[in-house]
Protein backbone atom coordinates (compact mmCIF):
# COMPACT_ATOMS: atom_id res chain seq x y z
CA UNK A 1 0.00 0.00 0.00
CA UNK A 2 2.70 2.43 1.06
CA UNK A 3 5.00 1.50 -1.81
CA UNK A 4 2.12 1.92 -4.28
CA UNK A 5 1.53 5.39 -2.93
CA UNK A 6 5.18 6.29 -3.39
CA UNK A 7 5.21 4.89 -6.92
CA UNK A 8 2.15 6.92 -7.79
CA UNK A 9 3.59 10.05 -6.24
CA UNK A 10 6.67 9.54 -8.39
CA UNK A 11 4.38 9.21 -11.41
CA UNK A 12 2.85 12.55 -10.45
CA UNK A 13 6.31 14.08 -10.64
CA UNK A 14 6.86 12.65 -14.12
CA UNK A 15 3.75 14.52 -15.23
CA UNK A 16 5.27 17.89 -14.32
CA UNK A 17 8.18 17.18 -16.65
CA UNK A 18 8.40 19.77 -19.44
CA UNK A 19 5.54 21.68 -17.86
CA UNK A 20 6.01 25.26 -16.77
CA UNK A 21 6.14 24.23 -13.08
CA UNK A 22 9.92 24.24 -12.66
CA UNK A 23 10.40 27.45 -14.59
CA UNK A 24 7.69 29.15 -12.59
CA UNK A 25 9.40 28.04 -9.39
CA UNK A 26 12.82 29.32 -10.40
CA UNK A 27 11.64 32.55 -12.01
CA UNK A 28 9.31 33.48 -9.14
CA UNK A 29 12.14 32.78 -6.70
CA UNK A 30 14.67 34.89 -8.59
CA UNK A 31 12.38 37.84 -9.19
CA UNK A 32 12.57 39.73 -5.87
CA UNK A 33 16.28 39.07 -5.06
CA UNK A 34 17.19 40.32 -8.54
CA UNK A 35 15.20 43.52 -8.15
CA UNK A 36 16.57 44.09 -4.67
CA UNK A 37 20.18 43.64 -5.74
CA UNK A 38 19.53 46.32 -8.31
CA UNK A 39 17.93 48.67 -5.75
CA UNK A 40 20.78 48.22 -3.26
CA UNK A 41 23.38 48.97 -5.88
CA UNK A 42 21.51 51.99 -7.23
CA UNK A 43 20.72 53.61 -3.88
CA UNK A 44 23.67 53.04 -1.53
CA UNK A 45 23.42 56.59 -0.12
CA UNK A 46 19.98 55.88 1.38
CA UNK A 47 20.31 52.19 2.16
CA UNK A 48 23.85 51.77 3.47
CA UNK A 49 23.02 53.14 6.93
CA UNK A 50 20.18 50.61 7.33
CA UNK A 51 22.52 47.74 6.52
CA UNK A 52 25.20 48.65 9.03
CA UNK A 53 24.07 46.78 12.14
CA UNK A 54 22.86 43.37 10.94
CA UNK A 55 23.48 43.32 7.20
CA UNK A 56 22.20 39.81 6.44
CA UNK A 57 19.14 39.97 8.66
CA UNK A 58 18.22 43.32 7.17
CA UNK A 59 18.77 42.08 3.64
CA UNK A 60 16.83 38.92 4.36
CA UNK A 61 13.85 40.86 5.72
CA UNK A 62 14.17 43.29 2.84
CA UNK A 63 13.52 40.40 0.48
CA UNK A 64 11.05 38.37 2.50
CA UNK A 65 8.85 41.42 3.02
CA UNK A 66 7.53 41.26 -0.55
CA UNK A 67 7.51 37.53 -0.77
CA UNK A 68 5.57 36.80 2.41
CA UNK A 69 2.75 39.15 1.55
CA UNK A 70 2.61 39.01 -2.24
CA UNK A 71 4.81 36.64 -4.18
CA UNK A 72 4.38 33.47 -2.12
CA UNK A 73 0.56 33.54 -2.11
CA UNK A 74 0.62 34.29 -5.83
CA UNK A 75 3.08 31.50 -6.47
CA UNK A 76 0.93 29.04 -4.52
CA UNK A 77 -2.20 30.06 -6.41
CA UNK A 78 -0.44 29.67 -9.77
CA UNK A 79 1.50 26.48 -9.12
CA UNK A 80 -1.51 24.66 -7.64
CA UNK A 81 -3.57 25.65 -10.63
CA UNK A 82 -0.86 24.58 -13.03
CA UNK A 83 -0.33 21.16 -11.48
CA UNK A 84 -4.03 20.35 -11.31
CA UNK A 85 -4.74 21.73 -14.78
CA UNK A 86 -2.36 19.16 -16.28
CA UNK A 87 -5.13 16.61 -15.69
CA UNK A 88 -8.05 18.75 -16.83
CA UNK A 89 -6.32 19.97 -19.95
CA UNK A 90 -5.43 16.46 -21.06
CA UNK A 91 -8.75 14.89 -20.05
CA UNK A 92 -6.86 12.46 -17.89
CA UNK A 93 -8.91 12.49 -14.70
CA UNK A 94 -11.09 9.72 -16.07
CA UNK A 95 -8.09 7.52 -16.73
CA UNK A 96 -6.78 8.19 -13.23
CA UNK A 97 -10.06 7.45 -11.50
CA UNK A 98 -10.53 4.31 -13.59
CA UNK A 99 -7.20 2.91 -12.41
CA UNK A 100 -6.83 0.70 -9.33
CA UNK A 101 -5.98 3.52 -6.95
CA UNK A 102 -7.84 4.58 -3.86
CA UNK A 103 -9.19 8.10 -3.68
CA UNK A 104 -6.80 8.95 -0.84
CA UNK A 105 -3.88 7.82 -2.98
CA UNK A 106 -4.97 10.03 -5.88
CA UNK A 107 -5.75 13.02 -3.67
CA UNK A 108 -2.60 13.00 -1.56
CA UNK A 109 -0.07 12.05 -4.22
CA UNK A 110 -0.87 15.18 -6.18
CA UNK A 111 -1.01 17.33 -3.07
CA UNK A 112 2.44 16.01 -2.21
CA UNK A 113 3.81 17.24 -5.52
CA UNK A 114 2.55 20.72 -4.69
CA UNK A 115 3.92 20.41 -1.18
CA UNK A 116 7.24 19.52 -2.69
CA UNK A 117 7.27 22.45 -5.07
CA UNK A 118 6.39 25.10 -2.46
CA UNK A 119 9.35 24.32 -0.15
CA UNK A 120 11.45 24.05 -3.32
CA UNK A 121 10.40 27.56 -4.17
CA UNK A 122 11.29 28.78 -0.69
CA UNK A 123 14.70 27.10 -0.77
CA UNK A 124 15.38 28.52 -4.24
CA UNK A 125 14.34 31.93 -3.01
CA UNK A 126 16.65 31.73 0.01
CA UNK A 127 19.52 30.68 -2.25
CA UNK A 128 18.84 33.59 -4.56
CA UNK A 129 18.74 35.97 -1.58
CA UNK A 130 22.21 34.79 -0.55
CA UNK A 131 23.54 34.94 -4.10
CA UNK A 132 22.07 38.38 -4.55
CA UNK A 133 23.63 39.55 -1.26
CA UNK A 134 27.02 38.20 -2.25
CA UNK A 135 26.74 39.83 -5.64
CA UNK A 136 25.91 43.18 -4.05
CA UNK A 137 28.90 42.86 -1.74
CA UNK A 138 31.23 41.97 -4.60
CA UNK A 139 30.22 45.12 -6.46
CA UNK A 140 29.86 47.45 -3.49
CA UNK A 141 31.93 46.16 -0.55
CA UNK A 142 30.47 48.73 1.86
CA UNK A 143 27.42 46.46 2.22
CA UNK A 144 29.36 43.83 4.22
CA UNK A 145 27.21 40.98 2.94
CA UNK A 146 29.97 38.40 3.24
CA UNK A 147 29.67 34.61 3.28
CA UNK A 148 31.09 34.24 6.77
CA UNK A 149 28.41 36.32 8.42
CA UNK A 150 25.31 34.86 6.76
CA UNK A 151 22.52 34.75 9.33
CA UNK A 152 21.44 31.15 8.69
CA UNK A 153 19.43 30.90 11.86
CA UNK A 154 17.13 33.80 11.10
CA UNK A 155 16.85 32.89 7.44
CA UNK A 156 15.71 29.40 8.40
CA UNK A 157 13.39 30.69 11.11
CA UNK A 158 11.67 33.23 8.87
CA UNK A 159 11.40 30.75 6.00
CA UNK A 160 9.89 27.96 8.03
CA UNK A 161 7.40 30.21 9.81
CA UNK A 162 6.17 31.65 6.53
CA UNK A 163 5.95 28.20 4.98
CA UNK A 164 3.85 27.02 7.90
CA UNK A 165 1.63 30.06 7.48
CA UNK A 166 1.13 29.27 3.80
CA UNK A 167 0.09 25.61 4.19
CA UNK A 168 -3.62 26.26 4.61
CA UNK A 169 -3.77 28.45 1.50
CA UNK A 170 -2.16 25.79 -0.61
CA UNK A 171 -4.72 23.20 0.51
CA UNK A 172 -7.62 25.60 -0.08
CA UNK A 173 -6.25 26.44 -3.53
CA UNK A 174 -5.80 22.72 -4.24
CA UNK A 175 -9.43 22.20 -3.32
CA UNK A 176 -10.62 25.01 -5.59
CA UNK A 177 -8.45 23.81 -8.46
CA UNK A 178 -9.83 20.28 -8.19
CA UNK A 179 -13.39 21.53 -7.90
CA UNK A 180 -13.49 23.67 -11.02
CA UNK A 181 -12.49 22.52 -14.46
CA UNK A 182 -12.20 26.11 -15.67
CA UNK A 183 -8.86 27.38 -14.37
CA UNK A 184 -10.07 30.99 -14.26
CA UNK A 185 -12.34 30.19 -11.31
CA UNK A 186 -9.70 29.00 -8.79
CA UNK A 187 -7.40 31.73 -10.06
CA UNK A 188 -10.04 34.42 -9.58
CA UNK A 189 -11.10 33.03 -6.21
CA UNK A 190 -7.50 32.85 -5.09
CA UNK A 191 -6.68 36.40 -6.09
CA UNK A 192 -9.94 37.68 -4.59
CA UNK A 193 -9.35 35.91 -1.28
CA UNK A 194 -5.77 37.10 -1.16
CA UNK A 195 -6.62 40.76 -1.88
CA UNK A 196 -9.41 40.59 0.69
CA UNK A 197 -6.78 39.38 3.12
CA UNK A 198 -4.52 42.36 2.43
CA UNK A 199 -7.46 44.67 3.06
CA UNK A 200 -8.52 42.81 6.19
CA UNK A 201 -5.06 42.71 7.70
CA UNK A 202 -5.79 45.44 10.26
CA UNK A 203 -9.07 43.91 11.33
CA UNK A 204 -8.96 42.25 14.77
CA UNK A 205 -10.66 39.07 13.55
CA UNK A 206 -8.21 38.49 10.72
CA UNK A 207 -6.68 35.66 12.71
CA UNK A 208 -9.50 33.53 11.27
CA UNK A 209 -8.46 34.31 7.73
CA UNK A 210 -5.83 31.87 6.37
CA UNK A 211 -4.80 34.02 3.41
CA UNK A 212 -3.02 36.48 5.74
CA UNK A 213 -1.14 33.95 7.88
CA UNK A 214 2.07 33.96 5.87
CA UNK A 215 2.13 37.77 5.90
CA UNK A 216 1.46 37.84 9.66
CA UNK A 217 4.24 35.31 10.18
CA UNK A 218 6.57 37.90 8.76
CA UNK A 219 5.20 41.25 9.84
CA UNK A 220 4.37 40.62 13.48
CA UNK A 221 7.32 41.25 15.74
CA UNK A 222 7.30 38.10 17.83
CA UNK A 223 10.06 39.39 20.13
CA UNK A 224 7.62 42.01 21.34
CA UNK A 225 4.50 39.84 21.16
CA UNK A 226 5.55 36.21 21.72
CA UNK A 227 1.98 35.17 22.54
CA UNK A 228 0.91 36.01 19.01
CA UNK A 229 3.35 33.47 17.60
CA UNK A 230 1.58 30.69 19.48
CA UNK A 231 -1.82 31.91 18.32
CA UNK A 232 -0.64 32.09 14.74
CA UNK A 233 0.96 28.65 14.84
CA UNK A 234 -2.19 27.11 16.27
CA UNK A 235 -4.38 28.94 13.73
CA UNK A 236 -2.19 27.87 10.82
CA UNK A 237 -2.27 24.24 11.80
CA UNK A 238 -5.98 24.26 12.61
CA UNK A 239 -6.77 25.87 9.26
CA UNK A 240 -4.58 23.30 7.51
CA UNK A 241 -6.31 20.36 9.18
CA UNK A 242 -9.78 21.76 8.56
CA UNK A 243 -9.00 22.53 4.93
CA UNK A 244 -7.61 19.02 4.44
CA UNK A 245 -10.65 17.32 5.93
CA UNK A 246 -13.16 19.52 4.10
CA UNK A 247 -11.46 19.28 0.71
CA UNK A 248 -10.88 15.54 1.00
CA UNK A 249 -14.53 14.81 1.70
CA UNK A 250 -15.87 17.33 -0.74
CA UNK A 251 -13.75 16.12 -3.64
CA UNK A 252 -14.34 12.44 -2.83
CA UNK A 253 -18.07 13.11 -3.10
CA UNK A 254 -17.98 14.86 -6.47
CA UNK A 255 -20.77 13.58 -8.71
CA UNK A 256 -18.56 13.36 -11.78
CA UNK A 257 -14.97 12.21 -11.76
CA UNK A 258 -13.49 12.86 -15.16
Amino acid at each position, binding site marked *: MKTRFLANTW*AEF*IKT*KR*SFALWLTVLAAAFIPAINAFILLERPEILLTKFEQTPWLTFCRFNWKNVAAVILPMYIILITNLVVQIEFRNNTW*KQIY*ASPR*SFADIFFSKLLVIQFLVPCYIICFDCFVILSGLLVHSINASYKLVIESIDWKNLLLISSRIYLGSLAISVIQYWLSLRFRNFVIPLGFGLGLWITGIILMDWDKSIYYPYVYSAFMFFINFDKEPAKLIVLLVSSITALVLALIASFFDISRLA*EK*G
Partner: protein
Amino acid sequence: MEIKQAVIETDHLSYCFRGGEKVLDDINLSVPAGSIYGFLGPNGAGKTTTLRLLLGLLRCENPGIRLFGHQLHTSRIEIMRRTGSLIEQPSLYLHLTGQENLEVFRRAYDCPKSRAEKVLSITGLSNAAHKKVKAYSLGMKQRLSIAVALLHDPELLIMDEPTNGLDPNGIIEIRELIRDLSQNQGKTVLVSSHLLTEVEKLATHVGIIHQGRLLFQGTLAGLQNLQRQQSLLEIEVDKLTRAEQILSTHFQVLPKHGFAVQVVCPDADQAALINYMLVSGGVRVSRLGVAGNDLEKLFLQIISA
Protein backbone atom coordinates in the same frame (compact mmCIF):
# COMPACT_ATOMS: atom_id res chain seq x y z
CA MET B 1 -25.65 -22.79 -26.47
CA GLU B 2 -23.23 -22.89 -23.60
CA ILE B 3 -24.05 -20.68 -20.68
CA LYS B 4 -21.30 -18.25 -19.88
CA GLN B 5 -21.02 -16.21 -16.78
CA ALA B 6 -21.62 -12.51 -17.30
CA VAL B 7 -18.56 -10.35 -16.72
CA ILE B 8 -20.62 -7.18 -16.53
CA GLU B 9 -24.11 -7.04 -15.12
CA THR B 10 -26.25 -4.07 -14.26
CA ASP B 11 -29.46 -4.37 -12.33
CA HIS B 12 -32.16 -1.89 -13.32
CA LEU B 13 -29.57 0.83 -13.71
CA SER B 14 -30.96 4.33 -13.93
CA TYR B 15 -29.11 7.60 -13.79
CA CYS B 16 -29.73 11.29 -14.06
CA PHE B 17 -27.21 14.09 -14.01
CA ARG B 18 -27.76 16.66 -11.34
CA GLY B 19 -30.86 18.70 -12.06
CA GLY B 20 -31.43 16.92 -15.34
CA GLU B 21 -33.88 14.37 -16.57
CA LYS B 22 -33.29 10.64 -16.65
CA VAL B 23 -30.39 9.85 -18.98
CA LEU B 24 -30.47 6.10 -18.31
CA ASP B 25 -33.62 4.22 -17.55
CA ASP B 26 -33.74 0.64 -16.32
CA ILE B 27 -30.66 -0.70 -18.08
CA ASN B 28 -30.02 -4.40 -17.52
CA LEU B 29 -26.74 -5.00 -19.23
CA SER B 30 -25.30 -8.48 -19.38
CA VAL B 31 -21.95 -8.92 -21.06
CA PRO B 32 -20.93 -12.59 -21.32
CA ALA B 33 -17.35 -13.65 -20.68
CA GLY B 34 -15.25 -13.85 -23.83
CA SER B 35 -17.70 -11.87 -25.93
CA ILE B 36 -17.19 -8.77 -28.01
CA TYR B 37 -20.21 -6.82 -26.92
CA GLY B 38 -21.19 -4.06 -29.30
CA PHE B 39 -22.98 -1.31 -27.41
CA LEU B 40 -24.88 0.47 -30.12
CA GLY B 41 -26.88 3.67 -30.07
CA PRO B 42 -27.14 7.05 -31.76
CA ASN B 43 -25.34 10.08 -30.34
CA GLY B 44 -26.71 11.13 -26.99
CA ALA B 45 -28.28 7.71 -26.34
CA GLY B 46 -26.41 7.24 -23.07
CA LYS B 47 -23.51 4.98 -24.08
CA THR B 48 -20.77 7.06 -22.55
CA THR B 49 -22.82 7.62 -19.41
CA THR B 50 -23.32 3.87 -19.01
CA LEU B 51 -19.62 3.14 -19.49
CA ARG B 52 -18.63 5.89 -17.06
CA LEU B 53 -20.94 4.34 -14.48
CA LEU B 54 -19.35 0.93 -15.07
CA LEU B 55 -15.95 2.44 -14.29
CA GLY B 56 -17.15 4.26 -11.20
CA LEU B 57 -16.57 7.68 -12.76
CA LEU B 58 -20.07 8.85 -11.91
CA ARG B 59 -21.38 8.80 -8.40
CA CYS B 60 -24.51 6.77 -7.98
CA GLU B 61 -26.04 5.85 -4.64
CA ASN B 62 -26.84 2.23 -5.29
CA PRO B 63 -25.95 1.43 -8.85
CA GLY B 64 -26.27 -2.36 -8.65
CA ILE B 65 -23.35 -2.79 -11.01
CA ARG B 66 -21.42 -6.05 -10.86
CA LEU B 67 -18.18 -6.76 -12.67
CA PHE B 68 -16.62 -10.22 -12.42
CA GLY B 69 -19.40 -10.97 -9.96
CA HIS B 70 -18.29 -8.29 -7.47
CA GLN B 71 -20.22 -5.17 -6.55
CA LEU B 72 -18.54 -2.14 -8.08
CA HIS B 73 -19.00 0.17 -5.12
CA THR B 74 -17.42 -2.25 -2.66
CA SER B 75 -14.60 -3.78 -4.73
CA ARG B 76 -13.71 -1.02 -7.16
CA ILE B 77 -9.95 -1.37 -6.81
CA GLU B 78 -10.02 -5.16 -7.28
CA ILE B 79 -12.21 -4.75 -10.35
CA MET B 80 -10.08 -2.01 -11.90
CA ARG B 81 -7.00 -4.23 -11.63
CA ARG B 82 -8.71 -6.51 -14.12
CA THR B 83 -10.24 -3.84 -16.35
CA GLY B 84 -8.74 -1.63 -19.03
CA SER B 85 -10.62 1.40 -20.25
CA LEU B 86 -10.75 4.04 -22.94
CA ILE B 87 -13.49 6.61 -22.57
CA GLU B 88 -14.32 9.12 -25.28
CA GLN B 89 -11.51 11.35 -26.55
CA PRO B 90 -7.90 10.35 -25.84
CA SER B 91 -6.89 10.70 -22.25
CA LEU B 92 -3.15 11.30 -22.57
CA TYR B 93 -0.50 13.75 -21.40
CA LEU B 94 0.27 15.66 -24.56
CA HIS B 95 3.50 17.18 -23.24
CA LEU B 96 4.96 13.74 -22.49
CA THR B 97 6.20 11.12 -24.93
CA GLY B 98 4.31 7.92 -25.60
CA GLN B 99 6.75 6.04 -23.44
CA GLU B 100 6.42 8.52 -20.57
CA ASN B 101 2.65 8.28 -20.74
CA LEU B 102 2.87 4.54 -20.35
CA GLU B 103 5.36 4.97 -17.53
CA VAL B 104 2.92 7.16 -15.59
CA PHE B 105 0.14 4.58 -15.84
CA ARG B 106 2.47 1.64 -15.41
CA ARG B 107 3.14 2.81 -11.87
CA ALA B 108 -0.55 2.96 -11.10
CA TYR B 109 -1.03 -0.58 -12.39
CA ASP B 110 2.16 -1.91 -10.88
CA CYS B 111 3.26 -3.94 -13.88
CA PRO B 112 6.79 -4.66 -15.09
CA LYS B 113 8.62 -2.33 -17.51
CA SER B 114 8.54 -4.99 -20.19
CA ARG B 115 4.77 -4.54 -20.45
CA ALA B 116 5.23 -1.00 -21.74
CA GLU B 117 7.38 -2.26 -24.59
CA LYS B 118 4.97 -5.08 -25.22
CA VAL B 119 1.90 -2.85 -25.56
CA LEU B 120 3.82 -0.41 -27.73
CA SER B 121 4.59 -3.22 -30.12
CA ILE B 122 1.03 -4.61 -29.97
CA THR B 123 -0.31 -1.22 -31.00
CA GLY B 124 2.47 -0.61 -33.50
CA LEU B 125 3.88 2.45 -31.77
CA SER B 126 7.39 1.23 -30.97
CA ASN B 127 8.93 3.70 -33.41
CA ALA B 128 6.97 6.65 -32.05
CA ALA B 129 7.62 5.85 -28.39
CA HIS B 130 9.97 8.78 -27.89
CA LYS B 131 7.91 11.35 -29.73
CA LYS B 132 5.76 13.75 -27.78
CA VAL B 133 2.11 12.76 -27.92
CA LYS B 134 1.32 16.33 -29.02
CA ALA B 135 2.89 15.37 -32.36
CA TYR B 136 0.86 12.16 -32.74
CA SER B 137 -1.92 11.83 -35.28
CA LEU B 138 -5.39 11.09 -33.97
CA GLY B 139 -5.01 7.45 -34.95
CA MET B 140 -1.73 7.19 -33.03
CA LYS B 141 -3.27 8.82 -29.97
CA GLN B 142 -6.14 6.38 -30.13
CA ARG B 143 -3.68 3.47 -30.38
CA LEU B 144 -1.67 4.80 -27.46
CA SER B 145 -4.90 5.01 -25.46
CA ILE B 146 -5.47 1.36 -26.25
CA ALA B 147 -1.89 0.63 -25.21
CA VAL B 148 -2.61 2.28 -21.85
CA ALA B 149 -5.76 0.21 -21.52
CA LEU B 150 -3.79 -2.98 -22.22
CA LEU B 151 -0.85 -2.21 -19.91
CA HIS B 152 -1.87 -4.47 -17.06
CA ASP B 153 -3.09 -7.21 -19.39
CA PRO B 154 -6.71 -6.86 -18.21
CA GLU B 155 -9.36 -9.54 -18.69
CA LEU B 156 -11.96 -6.94 -19.59
CA LEU B 157 -11.67 -4.00 -21.94
CA ILE B 158 -14.21 -1.20 -21.93
CA MET B 159 -13.87 1.06 -24.96
CA ASP B 160 -16.03 4.01 -25.85
CA GLU B 161 -16.13 4.65 -29.60
CA PRO B 162 -12.47 3.72 -30.12
CA THR B 163 -12.69 4.31 -33.87
CA ASN B 164 -14.35 7.72 -33.68
CA GLY B 165 -12.72 10.17 -36.05
CA LEU B 166 -10.32 7.66 -37.61
CA ASP B 167 -9.84 7.11 -41.32
CA PRO B 168 -11.00 3.80 -42.86
CA ASN B 169 -7.55 2.29 -42.52
CA GLY B 170 -7.33 3.20 -38.84
CA ILE B 171 -10.79 1.78 -38.27
CA ILE B 172 -9.80 -1.53 -39.81
CA GLU B 173 -6.59 -1.67 -37.76
CA ILE B 174 -8.40 -1.14 -34.51
CA ARG B 175 -11.06 -3.64 -35.45
CA GLU B 176 -8.40 -6.24 -36.21
CA LEU B 177 -6.69 -5.47 -32.91
CA ILE B 178 -9.89 -5.91 -30.92
CA ARG B 179 -10.69 -9.13 -32.74
CA ASP B 180 -7.23 -10.46 -32.01
CA LEU B 181 -7.47 -9.56 -28.33
CA SER B 182 -10.74 -11.39 -28.09
CA GLN B 183 -9.96 -14.48 -30.15
CA ASN B 184 -6.34 -15.10 -29.27
CA GLN B 185 -6.17 -13.75 -25.76
CA GLY B 186 -9.65 -14.50 -24.56
CA LYS B 187 -10.42 -10.99 -23.40
CA THR B 188 -13.95 -9.76 -22.96
CA VAL B 189 -14.51 -6.53 -24.83
CA LEU B 190 -17.31 -4.03 -24.38
CA VAL B 191 -17.12 -1.56 -27.23
CA SER B 192 -19.59 1.21 -27.94
CA SER B 193 -20.35 2.69 -31.32
CA HIS B 194 -23.00 4.74 -33.05
CA LEU B 195 -22.46 2.85 -36.31
CA LEU B 196 -24.29 -0.38 -36.88
CA THR B 197 -21.92 -1.41 -39.67
CA GLU B 198 -19.04 -1.26 -37.21
CA VAL B 199 -20.78 -3.40 -34.63
CA GLU B 200 -22.01 -5.81 -37.24
CA LYS B 201 -18.48 -6.49 -38.45
CA LEU B 202 -16.99 -7.05 -35.04
CA ALA B 203 -19.40 -7.98 -32.30
CA THR B 204 -20.61 -11.34 -31.10
CA HIS B 205 -23.24 -9.72 -28.88
CA VAL B 206 -25.21 -6.55 -29.31
CA GLY B 207 -27.00 -4.15 -27.00
CA ILE B 208 -29.01 -1.36 -28.57
CA ILE B 209 -29.58 1.71 -26.48
CA HIS B 210 -31.74 4.66 -27.37
CA GLN B 211 -32.79 7.60 -25.24
CA GLY B 212 -31.42 5.86 -22.19
CA ARG B 213 -33.33 2.61 -22.68
CA LEU B 214 -31.88 -0.74 -23.68
CA LEU B 215 -34.13 -1.77 -26.56
CA PHE B 216 -32.42 -4.94 -27.64
CA GLN B 217 -29.85 -7.23 -26.10
CA GLY B 218 -28.66 -10.54 -27.46
CA THR B 219 -26.30 -12.21 -29.87
CA LEU B 220 -25.59 -10.74 -33.27
CA ALA B 221 -27.22 -13.83 -34.75
CA GLY B 222 -30.30 -13.12 -32.66
CA LEU B 223 -30.48 -9.61 -34.04
CA GLN B 224 -30.16 -10.92 -37.58
CA ASN B 225 -32.93 -13.44 -36.90
CA LEU B 226 -35.21 -10.71 -35.69
CA GLN B 227 -34.56 -8.90 -38.92
CA ARG B 228 -35.74 -11.85 -40.99
CA GLN B 229 -39.01 -12.08 -39.12
CA GLN B 230 -40.06 -8.52 -39.57
CA SER B 231 -40.69 -7.20 -43.00
CA LEU B 232 -40.91 -3.69 -44.16
CA LEU B 233 -43.42 -2.59 -46.78
CA GLU B 234 -42.60 0.28 -49.04
CA ILE B 235 -45.60 2.03 -50.56
CA GLU B 236 -45.49 4.77 -53.16
CA VAL B 237 -48.45 7.12 -52.90
CA ASP B 238 -49.53 10.51 -54.15
CA LYS B 239 -50.43 11.99 -50.76
CA LEU B 240 -47.69 11.13 -48.27
CA THR B 241 -49.03 12.88 -45.20
CA ARG B 242 -52.53 11.55 -45.63
CA ALA B 243 -51.18 8.03 -46.11
CA GLU B 244 -49.18 8.30 -42.92
CA GLN B 245 -52.24 9.48 -41.05
CA ILE B 246 -54.31 6.56 -42.19
CA LEU B 247 -51.70 3.89 -41.59
CA SER B 248 -50.37 5.08 -38.27
CA THR B 249 -53.59 4.08 -36.56
CA HIS B 250 -52.88 0.39 -37.21
CA PHE B 251 -49.21 0.13 -38.10
CA GLN B 252 -45.80 1.43 -37.19
CA VAL B 253 -44.81 3.97 -39.82
CA LEU B 254 -41.14 4.89 -40.24
CA PRO B 255 -39.89 8.41 -40.86
CA LYS B 256 -40.49 9.02 -44.56
CA HIS B 257 -37.94 9.50 -47.24
CA GLY B 258 -38.63 10.24 -50.89
CA PHE B 259 -42.09 9.56 -52.26
CA ALA B 260 -42.76 6.41 -50.28
CA VAL B 261 -44.01 5.53 -46.82
CA GLN B 262 -42.45 2.61 -45.03
CA VAL B 263 -44.53 0.47 -42.73
CA VAL B 264 -43.43 -2.25 -40.35
CA CYS B 265 -45.56 -5.24 -41.06
CA PRO B 266 -45.36 -8.43 -39.02
CA ASP B 267 -46.52 -10.51 -41.97
CA ALA B 268 -46.68 -9.65 -45.61
CA ASP B 269 -50.30 -10.85 -46.01
CA GLN B 270 -51.47 -7.54 -44.64
CA ALA B 271 -50.49 -5.79 -47.84
CA ALA B 272 -54.06 -6.15 -49.13
CA LEU B 273 -55.48 -4.55 -46.00
CA ILE B 274 -53.03 -1.68 -46.28
CA ASN B 275 -53.91 -1.13 -49.92
CA TYR B 276 -57.62 -1.18 -49.09
CA MET B 277 -57.19 1.30 -46.24
CA LEU B 278 -55.28 3.72 -48.42
CA VAL B 279 -57.57 3.54 -51.45
CA SER B 280 -60.73 3.95 -49.41
CA GLY B 281 -59.06 6.92 -47.71
CA GLY B 282 -58.63 8.62 -51.07
CA VAL B 283 -54.93 7.91 -51.53
CA ARG B 284 -53.62 6.58 -54.87
CA VAL B 285 -51.18 3.71 -54.53
CA SER B 286 -48.74 3.45 -57.41
CA ARG B 287 -46.43 0.78 -55.97
CA LEU B 288 -46.45 -1.54 -52.98
CA GLY B 289 -43.64 -3.94 -52.22
CA VAL B 290 -41.43 -5.51 -49.59
CA ALA B 291 -38.42 -3.30 -49.01
CA GLY B 292 -34.95 -4.81 -48.97
CA ASN B 293 -34.66 -5.31 -45.27
CA ASP B 294 -31.23 -4.96 -43.79
CA LEU B 295 -29.89 -4.51 -40.32
CA GLU B 296 -29.55 -0.78 -40.76
CA LYS B 297 -33.31 -0.52 -41.25
CA LEU B 298 -33.99 -2.85 -38.37
CA PHE B 299 -31.82 -0.65 -36.21
CA LEU B 300 -33.86 2.38 -37.26
CA GLN B 301 -37.02 0.40 -36.61
CA ILE B 302 -35.92 -0.62 -33.14
CA ILE B 303 -34.93 2.86 -32.09
CA SER B 304 -37.97 4.54 -33.55
CA ALA B 305 -40.41 2.08 -31.98
